[in-house]
């Protein structure tokens, strides 16, 4: 047990925390924007899987990781577009649409992967060279802090920068105000002449792009390859983080780091063979989310019209 509390192990946990938090944060800030418009996109897990795959596919075919990111964004956008068509235009039940697209994303990515790379028989898994971490000059020299925060992947810096940008977008721009208004009361916006469908498309497709990029972090920055369960529940955790963060960007950052920390600790405990039930740590994000829901009950910022399709003239 005393081995566990060494400097290097603890530093390792913190470095891993930030890495693990990255895809969660990217997907969750995207989902925050989508949900702000009143659309709950439950297909994050499938969308991240598609993003991880299309990112890997493009990177593998072109040899460019940056083009790979574009591919991931496009894959996520495609699923986001489907979600928007089903919910904003056709007005299908959002839970049903989300779950259906989730299965489509998971199954579709695997099918596509097999049809491209599996020639039958055991083949070595194709790999790409991963993104290198990027050390920020000077800042990365700070002991401990530098290693944890300033020697990370491009996508990690991107994820962190997106937190204030998302806040500014939602609360300091006209478009963001209108998006949030739609999420609370679409009829009020319709009567004010604010176009609902176009904004919901924008928000949900944006959420898809972010989920795709979150998935690509796993295939292009972490693994350097694609395998079917690469997302391993992170899409669901990202959804939980939006709830845990009470639909606020800053608390979504906190939630991502907290859930990342729990996961990193759990992994480290297992690796060190510490005799503690790691399952408890695996369950903690969800327990915390429920606790946050109860705690925030009276001041919940949940968009009031979340999951409710809007039909003009139904009063």
């Amino acid at each position, binding site marked *: 047990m005393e081995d566990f509390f060494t400097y290097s192990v603890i530093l390792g946990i913190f470095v891993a925390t930030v890495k693990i938090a990255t895809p969660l944060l990217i997907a969750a800030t995207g989902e925050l924007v989508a949900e702000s418009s009143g659309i709950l996109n439950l297909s994050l897990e499938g969308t991240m899987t598609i993003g991880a795959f299309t990112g890997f596919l493009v990177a593998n075919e072109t040899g460019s990781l940056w083009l790979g990111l574009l591919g991931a964004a496009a894959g996520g956008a495609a699923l986001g577009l489907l979600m928007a068509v089903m919910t904003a235009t056709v007005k299908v039940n959002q839970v049903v649409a989300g779950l259906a697209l989730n299965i489509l994303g998971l199954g579709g990515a695997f099918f596509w992967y097999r049809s491209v790379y599996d020639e039958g028989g055991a083949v070595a898994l194709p790999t790409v060279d991963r993104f290198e971490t990027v050390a920020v000059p000077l800042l990365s020299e700070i002991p401990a802090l530098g290693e944890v925060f300033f020697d990370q992947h491009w996508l990690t810096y991107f994820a962190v920068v997106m937190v204030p940008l998302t806040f500014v977008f939602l*609360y*300091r*721009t*006209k*478009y*963001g*105000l*209108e998006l*949030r*208004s739609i999420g*609370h*009361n679409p*009829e*009020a*916006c*319709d*009567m*004010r*002449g*604010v*176009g609902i469908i176009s904004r919901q498309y924008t928000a949900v497709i944006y959420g898809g792009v972010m989920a795709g990029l979150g998935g690509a972090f796993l295939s292009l920055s972490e693994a350097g390859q694609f395998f079917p369960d690469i997302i391993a529940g992170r899409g669901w955790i990202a959804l939980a983080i939006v709830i845990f963060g009470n639909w606020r960007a800053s608390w979504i950052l906190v939630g991502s780091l907290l859930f990342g920390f729990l996961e990193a600790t759990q992994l480290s405990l297992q690796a060190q063979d510490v005799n503690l039930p790691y399952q408890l740590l695996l369950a903690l994000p969800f327990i915390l989310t429920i606790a946050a829901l109860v705690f925030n*009950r*009276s001041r919940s*910022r949940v968009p*009031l019209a979340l999951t409710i399709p809007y039909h*003009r*003239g139904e*009063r």
Partner: protein
Amino acid sequence: MDTTPVTAPGNDILVAEEVTKVFPGVIANDAVNLNVRRGEIHCLLGENGAGKTTLADILYGVYRPDDGRVLLNGEPLDLHSPRDAIEAGIGMVHQHFELVPPMSVIENVVIGTGAKQWLDLSEARRRLEEFFADYDVEIDPDAEVGRLSVGEQQWVEIFKTLYFGVEILILDEPTAVLTPQGVDELFRILRQMRDEGLTIILITHKLREVIALSDRVTVLRRGEVVGTVNTADVEQRDLARMMVGRDVLMQADKAQHDTGEVVLKIDDIHLASDTGRGSLKGLSLDVRGGEILGIAGVSGNGQNALFDAVVGVRHPEQGTIRIADADTTHAPPHKVALQGVASVPGDRIAQGLMMDFSVKENLILGNQRARRFARAGVLNRAEIDRFADESIEHFEIKTPSASQTTSTLSGGNLQKIIMARELSGEPRLIIVHQPTRGLDIAASEYVRRRLIEERDRGVAVLLMSEDLDEIFQLSDRIAVIYDGRIDYVAEPEATSLEEIGLYMAGVVEAAGAAP
């Protein structure tokens, strides 16, 4: 507000020609003609379901007419959405507010306005403060809209619309949520706005308001225009006849009679609501057999909590509720019903009925476990059919059959289903919330007559309504609920609309004797 010098005051500004709008099964507007003159207050008068709101929604671009056309300043106007109407200078405040409750007053006002993407609230704040100062309205621009009173929310709605710089303002039943003094205040300001050049179209079914406020009035009945008259040339009686098509009894027949024992006794109950609005804070009242106790009040002052507490949906944290000899403070709804309590909820569609169920299923809803309708958990269909047919005949429910899907019926018939169900058990207490909201005059008269019949039978009736005329018409005693308390009870002969209004607004506090 600037007056446009293009046309002189008094000319037609907005005209509807032969406008027809058909919804499945009903002609909402049948070749309707309307002409509104610049700078006038024009009332659209009609019963619920006469087509007033549909006509206004067509003028505001919510619906497109199936036939006919709309002219603005003599030019045909082709509206595809409210946005088009706003750009043409037409704004509308709906009866159901179109507000975003978690956002501030200013945020609500700027939604859909301004060209700049960067959110700049200072201009809106300046204009808002100016506006409130001009018209003597006191509202904090940074307050969260959901926490304002309904009267204040209405001001936010009105200013929100004027912020677009419209020249024509359509108001749909704006007085429904106001106290009598609030109505006077609104009318004073609307006259001021008219004198400054605004054209106002006001939708109402209240004759008194038409007489008090309007310059001209167009009366609609069953989707057709009965006529347009100068308000100065007519009296309430004439308008009533135009609106209903026959002479209307303005007073319900109600014989004096003696009251019995106390049936419902509520003592100092406290019940906190989740949002903090509409909590009960030490409310006491009692209702005797054979009397109607009418509770007046602006919505949001605890009516819903009181209803829920009496029927057992929510339980007070403190205080007691007794029905006859039984303590029902913590009893669940079906136990309360067993004490002979019938309830007619304020939102008949959300709380009173399963809209996708058949009429007969709704007629036994809640009584499905009664021995009469089920044996060993299996529904007795023959008995249910018999009961349904009886109820349909007895309560004059207009439906093709007892198996008809409930959602296809009109509001009046929906209310009759609930009344038939609730009165079938011969209750000793009836609690009704907004029993005639949205009903036409014939259905309202029917519901009121039934309530008086029950009272004459010796039943205790607790009536909550925002319609003060109804309260005065039906009640043997009138109580006012304000901020979760009842501090004023009086007999209708011993009080007045004005006095009740002051208590409803909380202007006079606890000066009247508590019961």
